[in-house]
C-alpha cells in the first residue's frame, strides 16, 4: 500500500462529510411539512443519521488537516467553492417524490460506498463506515420502497416520480466518475475503485425502478463539478446562507 497524501485524504473526507451535511440539511427542511406524520418522523430520522455521519466525517477531516479547525468550522465557515459534495444532494427538495427519488439514488450509491469503506486500510474510516452502513441500509430500504410505492401508485404519483427521475438521473453519473483523489484513495486502499461500485448499485437501482414501473432516461450524460468543487449549482449558495448565517453574523460567539 502506498502512503496516503494527507491533502488528498482531507479532500476525500470532505466529500463524504459534505454529501451527508448537504443532504441532511435538505432533508431537515421537511420537518413539520411532510405529507403525513409518519413520514415527517421518518424523514427526521434520516436527517439525524446524516448529521451524525457528518460530525464523524468532518471531524476526521479536520483532524487530518491539522489546522485546529473543527467539524463545525468546516461546515459553517467554508464558502461554496470549498464544498465537495456531489451535485445530486444539493438539488432542491421539490415535491416529496423528488425528495425521495434523490434520496434513493444517493442511498443506493452511499450504501455500496460504505460497505466497501468498512474494509478501508484507514482504521478510522473503516470505523465510521461500520457505524454509518447500518443506518444507510435502512435508508435505502425505506427510500426504495417509497419510490416503488409512488411509482406504482396512482397515475398522478407515477407521473410525478417519472418526472423526478428524469430530472435527477443526470446527476447520478458524478458519483461514479473517479478523479485523481479517488485514484489515490483506491491505490492506498482507503476507498474502493468507484467504477466497481457501479455494478451492485445499478442492479439495485434497476430492480427498484422496474418494480416502480419507471423508465431510466436514455443517454449517458452526467453533470459534474460538485465533488471536485469546480462548479456547484446555484442552489448550494442559498443553502449556505441559511446554514451558516448565525456563525457568519456573530463571529467568535459560542453556541
Amino acid at each position, binding site marked *: 500500500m502506498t502512503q496516503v497524501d494527507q491533502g488528498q485524504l482531507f479532500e476525500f473526507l470532505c466529500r463524504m462529510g459534505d454529501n451527508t451535511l448537504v443532504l441532511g440539511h435538505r432533508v431537515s427542511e421537511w420537518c413539520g411539512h411532510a405529507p403525513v406524520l409518519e413520514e415527517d418522523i421518518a424523514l427526521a430520522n434520516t436527517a439525524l443519521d446524516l448529521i451524525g455521519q457528518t460530525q464523524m466525517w468532518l471531524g476526521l477531516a479536520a483532524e487530518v488537516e491539522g489546522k485546529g479547525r473543527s467539524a463545525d468550522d468546516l461546515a459553517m465557515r467554508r464558502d461554496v467553492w470549498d464544498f465537495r459534495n456531489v451535485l445530486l444532494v444539493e438539488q432542491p427538495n421539490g415535491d416529496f417524490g423528488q425528495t425521495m427519488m434523490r434520496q434513493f439514488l444517493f442511498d443506493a450509491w452511499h450504501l455500496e460506498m460504505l460497505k466497501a469503506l468498512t474494509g478501508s486500510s484507514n482504521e478510522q474510516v473503516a470505523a465510521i463506515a461500520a457505524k454509518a452502513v447500518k443506518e444507510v441500509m435502512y435508508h435505502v430500504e425505506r427510500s426504495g420502497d417509497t419510490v416503488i410505492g409512488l411509482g406504482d401508485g396512482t397515475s398522478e404519483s407515477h407521473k410525478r416520480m417519472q418526472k423526478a427521475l428524469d430530472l435527477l438521473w443526470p446527476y447520478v453519473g458524478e458519483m461514479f466518475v473517479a478523479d485523481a483523489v479517488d485514484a489515490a484513495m483506491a491505490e492506498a486502499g482507503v476507498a474502493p475503485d468507484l467504477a466497481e461500485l457501479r455494478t451492485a448499485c445499478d442492479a439495485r437501482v434497476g430492480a427498484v425502478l422496474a418494480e416502480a414501473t419507471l423508465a431510466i432516461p436514455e443517454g449517458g450524460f452526467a453533470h459534474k463539478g460538485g465533488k471536485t468543487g469546480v462548479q456547484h449549482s446555484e442552489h448550494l449558495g442559498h443553502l449556505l446562507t441559511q446554514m451558516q448565517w448565525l456563525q457568519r453574523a456573530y463571529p467568535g460567539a459560542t*453556541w
Partner: protein
Amino acid sequence: MYAQMVKSEATQEDPERLAAFQARIDAGEKIEPKDWMPAGYRKTLIRQIGQHAHSEIVGQLPEGNWITRAPTLERKAILLAKVQDEAGHGLYLYCAAETLGVTRDEMTEMLLDGRMKYSSIFNYPTLTWADMGAVGWLVDGAAIMNQVPLQRTSFGPYSRAMIRVCKEESFHQRQGYDIMMKMCAGTPEQKAMAQNALNRFWYPSLMMFGPSDKDSVHSAQSMAWKIKMNTNDELRQKFVDQTVPQAEYLGLTVPDETLKWNDEKGGYDFAEPDWDEFFEVIQGNGPCNTERLAARNKAWDDGKWVRDGLLAHAEKKAARRVAAE
C-alpha cells in the same frame, strides 16, 4: 394549555348510569374505549385530545423555523430530534383520540378549516436563535406543568399517551435552558438576545394556562371527570414560582415590575398577561396565525397525491397477492 379553553359538554344520560360512571372515576379506575361513557365525556375528550394533538403539530413550526439555521451541527441535531418528538407526540395523541370514534384525517381537516383550535402560544414568531432557548425553557416548561398531572387522567388511552409524552419531554425543557445558559454566558449580544427572547415569551407563556377558571362550570365538570386535573390559576402560579429563580440564575430580568415574593402565600405575586391580546390570538389575530395554518394546509394539500399513491400501491399489491394464491 390544552384543557384550559375546552368547554366540557353537558350530558343528559340516565342519572343512575352517570352516577356509576362517576363512581368508577372517583375510585381511580381508568375508562377504556369500549366502556360506556357519557356522550359529553366523549365529546369533551375528543375536543381536548384533538386540540392537544394539533398543538403538537402546529408547535413543530415555530421551532422548525430554525432547524436549517442552527449554529452548530450538534444544535441542529438536538433541535431536529426535539421537533421530531413533537410530531411523535401529536401522533400518539391523535391515536388516543381515534379510540373515541373520530379519525385522524377528520381531526386534521377540522384543524385546517378552523373548526378546532391549537394552543395560542404557537402563533408567536421565533425571531432569533435565543427563541429556541426561550421556547424550550418557557413553553415546554409550561406544557410539562400541564402534562404531568394528565398522566393520571381518567381516560386510559389519553393517560397512556401522556405517560409516553412526559417520558420523552424531559429533554425538551433542558435543551432550551441549556441554550439560554450558553447565550447568557456568551457575548453581550448573545445575552441581549436572550433577554429579548424572555421579554417576548414571558406573557404568552403565562397565557398558555388560559384565563382564570376558578368559577367555571365547564372546568368543574372536566375536573370531576378527571380530564382536567388542576385549575388554570394553580398551574400558572406553580409555573411562575418555578421559573423566576431559573431566570435569576441566568441573570435575566423577568419583564414584570410588579413581580414580588409573597411570604404569606409562599409564592410570587405577578402581573396578569393581557387577556385581550389572548382572545385576539385565539380569534385568529395573533402574529402568525395565518402563516401557521397556511403551512399546515400546504403540507396537507401537497401531500395528498403521496398518501393516495402509497395507498393505491398497497391495494394493488394486496390484489396481486390474492390473485397469486
